[in-house]
């Protein structure tokens, strides 16, 4: 089968994000950018499905500025066959991204779409569920295991109460959680090979998708910071403080 994976370029997870001085947005100048970690897990899973003979082609899609090409190249180096960049300088919110992905799916006709459960910049946790709805497809969010069997896929989901197992009719959308797999390191020869793999470019206009934002960010601020407290010498002192000073036990 054919798999589509979505890869988003985000501020690296090691960077502590800060608002710009004027509160108009988040500081991204000279900040390290990487593939969203959950998308790395999605790419890894797709490559494993190809290595297992379940998938025969993997296409990666990324939406945003021209530099998203780097994110696509990383996916190609991990084992994806082909990349599609939907290039735009416009601000993209999950609803618009979901409409773009739907348009790509209608062209590419994959049987399975893998993507992260959440982008670590907007922390929205929406996109996969949204385009699954547009297409009338089944969805398996927060997946920690998936098994393709004939016309369906069984997915273990990480939910608040523990783990839930669902059977989804294909075609399906699956969003990845942390325990699905551990992404591989990209080897240098594969980075070289990835440069030769096909990467197509499209625009939202060519796909006929209106990407106008529905939410306006009025301002961004830093949350109240906690002050570091004190060090106590031992458990006896701690219990004394918790009982008499903080009065929480």
């Amino acid at each position, binding site marked *: 089968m054919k798999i589509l994976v979505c890869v988003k370029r985000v501020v690296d997870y090691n960077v502590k994000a800060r608002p710009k001085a004027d509160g108009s947005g988040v500081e991204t100048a000279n900040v390290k950018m990487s593939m969203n970690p959950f998308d790395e897990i999605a790419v890894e899973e797709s490559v494993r499905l190809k290595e297992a003979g379940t998938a025969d082609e993997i296409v990666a899609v990324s939406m945003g500025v021209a530099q998203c090409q780097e994110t696509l190249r990383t996916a190609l180096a991990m084992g994806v066959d082909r990349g599609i960049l939907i290039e735009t300088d416009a601000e993209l919110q999950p609803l618009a991204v979901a409409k773009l992905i739907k348009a790509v799916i209608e062209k590419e006709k994959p049987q399975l779409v893998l993507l992260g459960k959440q982008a670590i910049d907007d922390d929205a946790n929406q996109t996969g569920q949204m385009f699954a709805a547009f297409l009338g497809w089944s969805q398996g969010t927060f997946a920690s295991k998936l098994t393709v069997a004939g016309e369906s896929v069984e997915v273990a989901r990480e939910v608040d109460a523990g783990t839930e197992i669902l059977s989804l009719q294909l075609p399906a959308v699956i969003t990845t959680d942390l325990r699905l797999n551990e992404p591989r390191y990209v080897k240098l020869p594969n980075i070289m090979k990835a440069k030769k793999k096909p990467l197509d470019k499209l625009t939202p206009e060519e796909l006929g998708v209106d990407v106008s934002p*529905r939410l306006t960010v009025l301002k961004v601020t830093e949350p109240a910071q906690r002050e570091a407290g004190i060090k106590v010498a*031992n458990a006896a002192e701690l219990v004394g403080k918790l009982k008499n000073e903080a009065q929480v036990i």
Partner: protein
Amino acid sequence: MSALVVAEHLDNKLNPATLAAITAAQALGTGVDVLVAGLDCGAVAEAVAVVDGVNKVLRAESEAYAHPLAEDIAPLIVQLAPSYSHVLAPATTTGKNIMPRVAALLDVAQISDIIGVESPDTFLRPIYAGNVIATVRSSDPIKVITVRGTAFAAASSHGGSADVETVDTTESTGLSSFVRADFTASDRPELTSAEIVVSGGRGMGNTDNFKLLEEIADKLGAAIGASRAAVDAGFVPNDYQVGQTGKVVAPKLYIAVGISGAIQHLAGMKDSQIIVAINKDEEAPIFQVADYGIVGDLFEVLPQLSAELDKLKS
């Protein structure tokens, strides 16, 4: 127009996160109705009817809603949504699973994980692992929202007297089906609503050592949490994970043991009232947010703490 809150329940019990979502809905200044969808969910509908501030309970009974499958619950909510200005659900794994599907079918944006209501169209929400708070305004006719439970007080679970009305159900789509659940059984308080949480990290070393934390948790009546590293290593199940991509907690007291304090972990616990850190590395970032810190080996400190708690009792 009023707001509709989607209730969450399991085994005939209302999830308390619903009560926080009701409080958030009340802050909009409109009336609040609550949808209870399920199979044999009469007890839950009755429990919601007496929640303070609820106008009306909509009860939808169907085999199709026996498990909260997004493909089957979303069309029900979409059918009811046009009579409402806002549709809210707790930002639990259930709410996060269903609500974006609702928003897409209504062709509106979702406002995820709100922590404040500025006005009926303007909300506060954390982004970038809570390092930034965004104030966002929605221009959509219906606002679809998920609510962070720790940011709003729970509505009182008595004092109300709403009518329960039965609503038309939707057909099962058959797109997905429930196979089984492996839920963690525990007599301890639920993690996101516990007053005290004791969490262990990679420093705990293995599953067996978590018994040291259980002992403390038992004495304090606390829930047990964990860092991602402890879950990844298999010390504890995934539902223990606290953080940006796990559960958000804000108890009276949070005790972090053998946890370094990565941004992603802090995102899930830094709104706790009092934070205690026990770590052998005095440079660990967790100490920057801790009210009380002990620099030391947890294998020495935890038995001492346990003994001190015994003394307190006697």
